[in-house]
């Protein structure tokens, strides 16, 4: 299945900003995060189709996943 991945902030470094990628069906967000080697302690938010989601959520064909770094105030 095809999933659009959008990466925000530091996650783009040495990766990409957005890309359509092919995954086996039934894959969850965590597997995408692992595959992209995104350090989990830096992961703040997951959006699936612009709605907040969790790393265990299962993806379906055509989904858009956005991975955002943690924010810590300023």
């Amino acid at each position, binding site marked *: 299945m095809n999933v659009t991945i959008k990466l925000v*902030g530091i996650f783009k470094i040495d990766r990409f900003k957005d890309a359509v990628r092919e995954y086996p069906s039934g894959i969850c967000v965590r597997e995408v995060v692992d595959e992209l080697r995104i350090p989990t302690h*830096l992961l*703040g*938010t997951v959006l699936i189709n612009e709605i907040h989601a969790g790393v265990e959520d299962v993806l379906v064909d055509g989904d858009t996943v956005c991975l955002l770094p943690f*924010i810590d*105030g*300023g």
Partner: protein
Amino acid sequence: MKSFTSDPASEPSSVLYSRCTVDLRSGKIHREDVPCRNLEDVLGGFGRSFQILAERNINHAYCEENPLIVNTGLLTGSSAMTGLRTYFSGYSPLKESKKSLPAAMWSTGSGNFGAKLKWTGLDELIFENRSTTPVYAVIRETAEGPLVELKPADHLLGLSTHEKIMALHKEYGSAHFAAIGQAGEQWENVYMGAVALSTDNQLKSGEDKMRFAGRGGMGSLMGYKNLLALVAQSSDKIKPLTPEVKKVNINVVKGGGAGRLLPISRGGGGGTWAAYDVLQTFHAVPVNNFRPQGNNEPEKLFREHVEKQFVIKSEACYRCGITCHNNVHEKSEDGSVGRFLAKFDYEPLNLLGTNIGLHDAAQAASLIHTCDNYGMDSISLGVTVSYLLAYNERHPERPLLNGAVFGEYAKIKELITQAGLGNLPEIGRGSKRLSESTGETSYAYHVKGLEIAAYQPETNPGYAWAIAGGHMSMGTYGLLTREGKSDMESWVQGITRDKLQIVGFDMIGLCKFFDITKGICTQMVVDCLKSEFGLDITIENLAASVRRAFLRGLALELRQGYEKAEYTLPAEVWERPNPNIKLPNITHPEFIAELQKRVWEIFEPELDGLLPQE
């Protein structure tokens, strides 16, 4: 601090803290060991200072009875990472209720002044009354204990924060400094004066790389007292790292806690600047006085773009492995590091950049630099300026001051410079007073008289219950954006339970970046207290103490005339809902009304008995 117990929660009076009271009018100085009343006194910071403030009835911030309390937290000066905080407390010239009574306030910063102050042997300084002539205070370690002296400060008058610090540095070796700038000296017209705290980096390089206790105008209160600077002179007294504290420190840097704040080159998130990218995903980066426009303009100040033009150095306070400062320097032709321009933390960058219509890093840097050197709070300054620009945009036929509108760098710089010199009380006295004078209060982005931080109010109704400024005394600013919580239960729980715990850092002497998501009620803190002082304080006792301190702050607000209706957001949020923000709407009037009802139902019964009887 002297402790004759290992259980300060049960036996607080067996812990004594060292306090020096300085009467600025008479010059009398009195040092004493004071027994703690409760665990809040033991932990220190605002947990202690607010109990002192609660004993006074203050109707005007600029009165002799309003003390300036300078203190540290239990872990300030310890070997626990980030243990460098100094706290400045008093009744605020800036934050006031609609009844015009000043609110109790604290402000805090890092740098190395706090540790030095602790190492002189003092835990707290209370400055009473005001001096008739400009003075500075020297706190020194001597064989007989800490010694405090007042010295004439005429030679410091008119100097910027950095210039004052460097002038004193020439005179006092092995010392660190707290200083106000011209803005604090002009306290009558500037209520948002900040206190600058020196860093090792600043003293060694001569570059103006200070940290600030900015919120609530504690620098203006210092200026009113004619107290221009503090010098803490002592040898360094860092204890050898115990295995327990070493483990905690490694966990702070390498574990989840602060790893995200580390420089990108060390696998971290690159500090608070990262908030730009995240919030822009939701079109929730404040633009033009908190009106995000759904466009890409904020991206111009993304780190990846600024990096092409400038060198960004990741630097730290003394001995801190978190290295959260992003110091922006000019880039020489060969790519090497040039002149230091400014620090780029998220708040000042946004509020003196994107939120006033400036998307050029050099311009934002120049304004941050100006603000820091005059010694103003960048949040209050930026938000008051953005209000003025919004007013002028709405009223081109009768604009205020120099008529500046969003994006007009030269005119905005003039406003900031003149405000810093005390020539523009319209700006220097903050957005509440300015908006009341124009009669257009709905788009003045303050809550309870204190300007909000650079998080859209649409994303954070928790602002209403913050007791010392938007994001640092109520940790709900990420509850919607980061955690995706838009239901009532999560917000009630967040405000009344979990997220108020953020204020614990402002008691104990640690930076919030020590572990911002979990707060101070953790095994890491318990281990540090045991290892450093032999104290057995449980997580539950810490949590209860932090909660009491927070609630005492709330009770004090109510005593200073705040009405429940003031626990709300700027009205523009629901009068003109912003369709560009891509998040659920949790700030419509019905949500806010229900939240107010539910939050007060929980808080109100707990407020009894927290303040001294009148």
